[in-house]
């Protein structure tokens, strides 16, 4: 459904190849985990999917249509929600305000200067309820715990009513119980809304529990692409034994 065609990303004017030319497709409703050490290119691949990274070569296409102009990009990003490791919320604003920001793609620039529509407010509250934070709707985000902030981030993604959900290390800064809570929430949402979900992780155990499909990256190259059962110990060793090539 969403596809990278020979897409590569090179940073620092050609010094660092973060992602070698990669062709890969993510199918509708599939829960994929990107596995790799930090610096392996997980984030780069993920951020290429909604073009937060500009590809050095290659293209992104959705259902066969290439994303090549501003209008298509805006449309694509509206349909492709993202969750970040560091939450990336407006800390001094309320949870509800942060979640409502997820609706911006549905408003014109001028219209968004005025308060948002009532239906969108209801929808935002519905999403907060789905992640179990309805009672925190009017709390400032910086008063919430790390796990709660990440769930606000998920609600902001959900309110976009996306077809694709990208999560960049969503549990890396959470304790194990919070992490499982967030991962099963993502898994449940993927099934419930039939969303194409791509999550980058660095823990194999989490990947094995939650993923339908695992894509492993080493030094900017896909070295494994298959279901959980096919992920042998040898491959796991290969993912983690490669010396780090400096961080990006």
């Amino acid at each position, binding site marked *: 459904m969403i596809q990278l065609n020979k897409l590569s990303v090179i940073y620092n004017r050609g010094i660092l190849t973060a992602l070698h030319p990669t062709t890969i497709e993510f199918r509708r409703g599939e829960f994929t985990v990107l596995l790799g050490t930090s610096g392996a290119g997980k984030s780069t691949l993920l951020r290429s999917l909604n073009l937060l990274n500009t590809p050095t070569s290659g293209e992104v296409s959705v259902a066969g249509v290439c994303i090549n102009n501003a209008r298509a990009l805006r449309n694509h990003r509206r349909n492709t929600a993202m969750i970040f490791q560091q939450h990336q919320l407006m800390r001094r604003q*309320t949870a509800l305000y942060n979640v409502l920001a997820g609706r911006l793609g549905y408003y014109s620039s001028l219209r968004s200067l005025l308060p948002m529509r009532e239906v969108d407010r209801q929808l935002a*509250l*519905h999403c907060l309820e789905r992640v179990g934070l*309805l009672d925190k709707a009017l709390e400032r985000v910086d008063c919430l715990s790390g796990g709660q902030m990440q769930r606000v981030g998920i609600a902001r993604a959900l309110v976009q009513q996306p077809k694709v959900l990208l999560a960049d290390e969503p549990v890396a800064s959470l304790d194990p119980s919070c992490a499982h809570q967030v991962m099963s929430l993502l898994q449940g949402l993927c099934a419930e809304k039939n969303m194409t979900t791509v999550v980058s992780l660095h823990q194999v155990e989490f990947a094995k529990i939650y993923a339908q499909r695992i894509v492993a990256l080493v030094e900017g190259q896909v070295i494994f692409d298959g279901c959980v059962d096919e992920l042998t110990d040898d491959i796991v060793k290969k993912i983690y034994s490669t010396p780090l090539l400096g961080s990006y």
Partner: protein
Amino acid sequence: MSVSYNKILQKERLKRRKLSFQLVLIALVIVVCAYVSELFDGQRLIAGVPSLLLIFSESIPPDFSDWQSWLRPLFDTLAMSIAGTALAMLVAVPLGVLAARNTTPHVLVYQLVRGMLNLLRSIPELIMGILFVAAVGFGVLPGVLALAFHSIGMVGKFIAETIEHADPGVIEAIRATGASSFQVMIHGVLSQVIPQICDVTLYRWEYNFRASTVMGMVGAGGIGFELMSALRLMNYDEVSAILLLILLLVTLVDSLGASLREKMK
């Protein structure tokens, strides 16, 4: 369920209404202030345009014929800004340590130094210039002192506040190594805030250079004196030439400061 939704939304709406009420109030205050400042006196504003145009037309083309006599004052101005900033930093860092709540030796010292910094900040540098001219006579020296003392007030407060925001965890970690309190101060506190101190030094230097260009007006050295005499004689073409030179130097100093700051990142 939707009952509780409506409750939350109602609460939120109330908050928003309160905010817009406050915004209206602020707007009202601004309008009143603008009225008191006669900003709405359209006739007077329009009447001012012709004289402004006259001065403008008299100042073109700029008259650079006297440029040789401006070189020394321009150099003095530059030297004044650098020396003044350096002197200010020398005094402001220790004062900043004394005026930060987490490093001050005593509450009384804290209050005293804070009060002193406030006093220094509240005296404009031109007034300081006049005072120092009275104290040490005409020339560059009173200008340097005026810039330095005014700067101490601002930079000292900034450093104190930066120190107060320093990460207590790092300070604790340094203390845990068995460092003396002097070592904690240098390696735990100051090493954390050095980037900010460098930043504010460069900003202050840029500011002081702009401020030093007017110091000459009160006899405290630099290009301001030439500017003032050209203005008094209504030689507007010379005034515009000097202003252009100052603009050139300000731009140079600012871009030098910016590139230094970029390098230190």
